[in-house]
């Protein structure tokens, strides 16, 4: 599947939902106090911005932002599963993060295709650039 840059109405809806969920979990973490939670909330806000900002560099590497945010949310879930605490607000935050990962995966599939192929393509592009050989590369919006 070739990555595409044009957005269909469903893509816009998914992107809005991703931003909403990201800001939602950012807000929950910002209310928890302490440096770790504040940094976590800041990370989510930056990611929410990066997922929609219409800058060339962000558009070019949107695939990486999607994967990065999925990894970030997955890390938060796993860390919480190991250390807790297990109470209502935490369950809500984790449910949001699970939904966020799901939507990001759907967005990735719609915009970029198979992540393995995207990573292979990007690595090929990088090695071409390092070897000063001409290459073509594409990325989704």
């Amino acid at each position, binding site marked *: 599947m070739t990555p595409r840059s044009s957005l269909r109405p469903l893509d816009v809806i998914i992107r809005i939902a991703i931003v909403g969920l990201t800001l939602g979990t950012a807000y929950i973490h910002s*209310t*928890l*106090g*302490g440096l770790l939670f504040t940094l976590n909330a800041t990370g989510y806000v930056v990611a929410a911005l990066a997922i929609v900002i219409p800058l060339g560099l962000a558009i070019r590497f949107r695939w990486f932002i999607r994967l990065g945010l*999925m990894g970030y949310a*997955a890390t938060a*879930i*796993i860390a*919480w*599963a190991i*250390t*807790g*605490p*297990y*109470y209502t*607000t935490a369950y809500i935050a*984790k449910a949001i*993060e*699970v939904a966020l*990962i*799901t939507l990001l*995966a*759907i967005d990735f*599939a719609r915009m970029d*295709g*198979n*992540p393995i192929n995207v990573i292979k393509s990007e690595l090929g592009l990088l090695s071409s650039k390092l070897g000063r050989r001409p290459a073509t590369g594409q990325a989704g919006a």
Partner: protein
Amino acid sequence: MKRFLLTFGLVAVAAISAACSTAAAQPAPSGPVDPNGPTIVAKDMAFAPATVEIAAGKNVTIHFDNQDSAPHNVAIYKDASASEKISVGEIVSSKKVDQVVPALAAGTYFFRCDVHTNMTGSIVVK
């Protein structure tokens, strides 16, 4: 792509399941409870006092006053490794709650906020 989505889904479900399975309920202490236990205040991300005393061999009510908007609780463990729970209080924000601590043998016990594990204190049982 389906495998990619399935993997993420399974990891998330496994993580949530693991978390749910470790949240065990504590048995209520039997016998009379001394209602005049110490008050522990949480303010500015710290406990005050950081060390409290209670009587040995008696169930006692600890009064927890969380003055922060951030959520805190008083979770009492046998020692600082926090591997053996004794009494884990409700996590609350800007609220006072009472917590019944079961009768303990003389010694020094460790307590912390389970949300902010750098907030710690000691309970001296005499």
